[in-house]
């Protein structure tokens, strides 16, 4: 019976702890946790410790800050996040309103709409890369056919290249965030909208006074979570521009690989350590939200 009490009262008194220790329940609990703890110790703790150890010398950071490519990457990362996430979340907010409309064809469209998220990154990003190829790509072929002029050298221009990487990122992750905001909208009681209609509210007013107040927290959480995920978006940049031309389109996620390639592992680690003060507050905020 003691074990049943343990189950129903997780917050039982400290005095009971002694008696609980190494009941079959605790024993099996520990046994079942061990596999994860092994993984965590050897493949999370150790690599992180190794990373900090590699990046321990102050002169690495001096070299890093003096590296124009690092400075450029930080600016790129900032632009990527600030522009990419806000546009993405805003479109997702609008599209979630579109997809909750009850139409047979919108149902079909929502099924297709998931595709970018469901298929792997590499074939679709390579496909886009081919579309943008200045000589053979379909985009410039069409530009030439209609205007008789050569199109821009898309991915060889750092500004266009980075913009395209942001577009790829949005293309890939928009379905996911739209789905979440759709589920957020569906959770709002229909009564509220009916009441608003009875009071003669316009669509804008309904959004302002019913939808947005209910979605606000979710929207903020999504934005922060998306920042963390987007910081780690390696594929959108690496597979599209490869960081080029002249290493001008790197972001923090691809910079580590670049330093690894030229055998400067300490720089690679230092670039991540330097970014931690910006990331950790986001991580802790999300942990607090999800751990409840």
């Amino acid at each position, binding site marked *: 019976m003691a*074990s*049943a009490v*343990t*189950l129903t009262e*997780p917050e039982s008194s400290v005095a009971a*702890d002694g008696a*609980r*220790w190494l009941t079959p329940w605790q*024993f*099996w*609990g*520990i046994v*079942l*946790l061990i*596999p*994860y703890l092994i*993984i*965590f110790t*050897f493949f*999370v703790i*150790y690599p*992180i410790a*190794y990373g900090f150890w590699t990046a321990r010398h102050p002169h690495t950071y001096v070299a890093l800050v003096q590296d124009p490519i690092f400075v450029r990457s930080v600016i790129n990362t900032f632009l990527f996040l600030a522009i990419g996430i806000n546009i993405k979340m805003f479109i997702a907010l609008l599209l979630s309103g579109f997809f909750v409309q009850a*139409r047979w064809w919108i149902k079909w*469209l929502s099924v*297709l709409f*998931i595709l970018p998220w469901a*298929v*792997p*990154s*590499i*074939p*679709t990003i*390579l*496909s886009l890369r*081919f579309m943008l190829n200045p000589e*053979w790509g379909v985009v410039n*072929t*069409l530009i030439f056919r209609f205007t008789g002029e050569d199109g821009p050298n898309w991915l060889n221009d750092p500004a266009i290249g980075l913009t395209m990487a942001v577009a790829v990122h949005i*293309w890939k992750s928009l379905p*996911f965030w739209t*789905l*979440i905001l759709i589920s*957020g909208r569906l959770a709002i009681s229909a009564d509220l909208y009916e009441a608003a209609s009875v009071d003669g509210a316009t669509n804008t007013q309904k959004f302002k006074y019913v939808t947005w107040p209910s979605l606000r927290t979710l929207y903020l*959480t999504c934005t922060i*979570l998306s920042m*963390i995920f987007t910081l*780690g978006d*390696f*594929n959108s940049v690496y*597979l599209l521009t490869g960081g080029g031309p002249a290493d001008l389109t790197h972001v923090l996620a*691809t910079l*580590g690989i670049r330093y690894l390639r030229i055998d400067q592992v300490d720089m690679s*680690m230092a670039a*991540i350590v330097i970014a931690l003060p910006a*990331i950790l507050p986001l991580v802790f905020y*999300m*942990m607090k939200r*999800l*751990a409840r």
Partner: protein
Amino acid sequence: MRESHIALLRAASTEAKLLLIGIPVLVWTLLPIYHMFLFAISPKDSAFSGKLWPDHPTLRNFGIVFRQEHYFLHHFWEQLWNSLFIALATGALTLTIATGAAFAISRLKVKGGRTVMNLALFTYFIPAAFLAVPMYRTMGVYGLLNSQWSLIIAMVTIATPYAIWVLKQTSDNLPVELDEAAVMDGASPMQLFRLVYLPLIAPALVAIGTYAILLAWNEYLYAFLLLSKDTAITLPVALGNFLSADDSPWELLMTTGFVYALPPAAIYYAFRRYMVSGLTAGAVKS
């Protein structure tokens, strides 16, 4: 009469507005995928023409890929198998580890379970790309580089935190009375696990298994860091290698990419019911 006319007009204009959103969304969504598909069914010389449909659609490219008739494709089947093996192994290991951990934390209320959950969440929120280089070096230290187990373990490391979290949320919602009844009947912890717990969380297990399998199947960064032998790499790495050559046969690259993209899309649609509710609802708790 007039009133119904206006109502009809208004309905038509709403419909038109919706179409005005829907059509660009459709084009935007399908463009890169359709472009890939066009390449796959176009003969080599006409793949660049910019037509909406090729003059002579062909399945020849698929034949070349499946018969491995190009220098880049010599190990196609082997690499497909590698992708499959690594994905399935990741799925199985993630499920085993995460189910045990979630059961221990949520139902057995093991001491320190909360801390473990927090550690796992912390891992979930480290961007995977930031852990890639340290992980690469770590695998080197352990002597696992070029072994497919290095990629499997790396994928399990990345997949388990989220898996544990979702499974823990699911198990927290199971009624306590079930456990109590089982305990009254004299069930041991492992009997409770097997006979009560596993059947009840089966739908979440499907979602999490699929999540882990797709994560590993789709992974590029870790795969290309950890594996390098032509016979050991997965399909995405092979696709990446394709690209580094000057005379890349684009139509074959797109065909291989298309074949590689099909299984996840199919799995996704097959398990859509579980995935959407299980993963998106779990991803952000409002």
